[in-house]
């Protein structure tokens, strides 16, 4: 077989693989959600339970990315600029939420903060539990995106500013923070997209109470179980659009920035 025909065969197989796996299912989802036209789509999306689920998802995701933006940056700073024993181990463990199955994340949080936990607190079936689960699974995004930037910011600009008499807070606000902002935004956008769709870690701990702790993904799951596929498809498309818009905005932002820098 010639190299050309082998390459064509490879491309063909890849095309089939991606079609079977991704393209056809997503097309089916879009088709299904628009089956009854825009009015049917809107009716599904605006049902009170769906509305509540979408609002809750957006709300907790916003809370989560704010906390992540703060703590992720702080963690990155401590990992880069601080020295203490066991730092390497802690640094490696930051990636644990990426490696740990989401259902295990839920179980793990329940074991500590659920009923009968050692602290005597019980957050199960509360919105705080949803936030905590999402904080757990999105923990690495901001920290990991800020860390390399902080590493490259070698401190000479900070020292220069300090030598000019700037206080520590001023140095941070004027020198460090602007340099980190793109990385923080990137980490926040990835966290947000992830939080919008998260399911495994939330499903056990949230109790899935409609109007209270039921997030979008759990709502979709419930509608699939009830064989209400139009509702499931409509809300799916809404969540997907939010995530895509955020990620597309991020891509445009990084692209315009890299042009600006060069």
């Amino acid at each position: 077989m010639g190299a050309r025909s082998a390459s064509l065969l490879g491309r063909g197989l890849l095309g089939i693989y991606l079609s079977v796996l991704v393209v056809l299912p997503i097309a089916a989802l879009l088709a299904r959600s628009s089956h009854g036209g825009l009015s049917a789509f809107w009716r599904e999306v605006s049902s009170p339970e769906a509305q509540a689920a979408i609002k809750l998802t957006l709300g907790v995701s916003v809370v989560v990315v704010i906390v992540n933006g703060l703590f992720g940056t702080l963690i990155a700073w401590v990992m880069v600029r601080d020295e203490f024993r066991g730092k390497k181990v802690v640094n490696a463990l930051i990636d644990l939420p990426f490696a740990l199955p989401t259902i295990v994340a839920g179980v793990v949080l329940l074991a500590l903060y659920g009923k009968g936990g050692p602290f005597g607190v019980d957050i199960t079936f509360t919105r705080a539990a949803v936030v905590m689960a999402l904080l757990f699974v999105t923990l690495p995004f901001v920290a990991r995106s800020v860390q390399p930037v902080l590493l490259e910011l070698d401190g000479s600009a900070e020292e220069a500013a300090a030598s000019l008499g700037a206080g520590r807070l001023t140095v941070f606000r004027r020198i460090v923070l602007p340099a980190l902002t793109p990385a923080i935004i990137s980490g926040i956008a990835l966290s947000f997209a992830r939080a919008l769709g998260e399911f495994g870690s939330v499903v056990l701990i949230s109790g899935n109470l409609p109007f209270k702790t039921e997030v979008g993904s759990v709502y979709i799951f419930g509608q699939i179980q009830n064989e209400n596929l139009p509702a499931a498809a409509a809300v799916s498309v809404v969540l997907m659009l939010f995530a895509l818009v955020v990620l597309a905005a991020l891509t445009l932002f990084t692209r315009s920035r890299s042009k600006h820098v060069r």
Partner: protein
Amino acid sequence: MSADPAKVPVAASGASVKASRLGLRTVALGYLFLLLLLPVAMIFYRTFEHGLEPVWKAMTEPNAVHAFWLSIELVAIAVPLNTVFGIGIALLLERGSFRGRWALGLVVDLPFAISPVVVGLALVLVYGQAGWFGTWLSEHGIDVIFSVPGMVLATAFVSLPFVARETVPVLHELGTDSEEAAATLGANAWQTFWRVTLPAIRWGVVYGVVLTTARALGEFGAVSVVSGRIEGQTQQLPLYVQDRFENFDATGAYTAAVVLALLALATLLAMNLLTRRTRSRRAV
């Protein structure tokens, strides 16, 4: 563990710089400790608090054993597929020049933007009974949804991007010089790929494979939708964890969770060893 803020050595210096540094360190480590370390440590404790015997019993439970092997089976199918196609996608994205490259990039990144539950739903809408191919599939006696093939599809979908995404930057860094050198030396496309390109990008690929494996092992939402969660048939480990938990079998749930957590820790170790191999890695 040294991450315990209580055990962090207190700097005796009175300088405010040191104090605020210590303060920040305590806050950061305290957050990590409460959110991450303590909960994970807790299930290890909970699992083994009544000794090894109940753990052993839980592990040898037929449904647990079946779930374990089903997880392995899913990984064994999805990971090689996504490795081969992932490398192919990376080559097309980085070396190819064709219209619609952005579309390929979008398709590969989609799994990052879509909820696992939505992935499951999308698969149901194509391969389920009421789906596009549902009638044709059932006429030919092929079960996809509520069966292992559907779980394979779900697992492969969610773990699709990793190899491609890890390989693209490595390919970019490698550049085309050495491949062109191989071509002028008489190597054909296959020889160039096997002898020059693949050895040069191998650590990037392996890193991607590790991430793919972790994701495939842990997938829950998508398989939850497509599997039907039939005990002893379509339950892989994460589904089994949920099943045990909802049936108030804490030991069974914790044991399976610990097995998955250990696999995650092994993944973490592999990631760290590999990061040292590849000098200039971008952030995940």
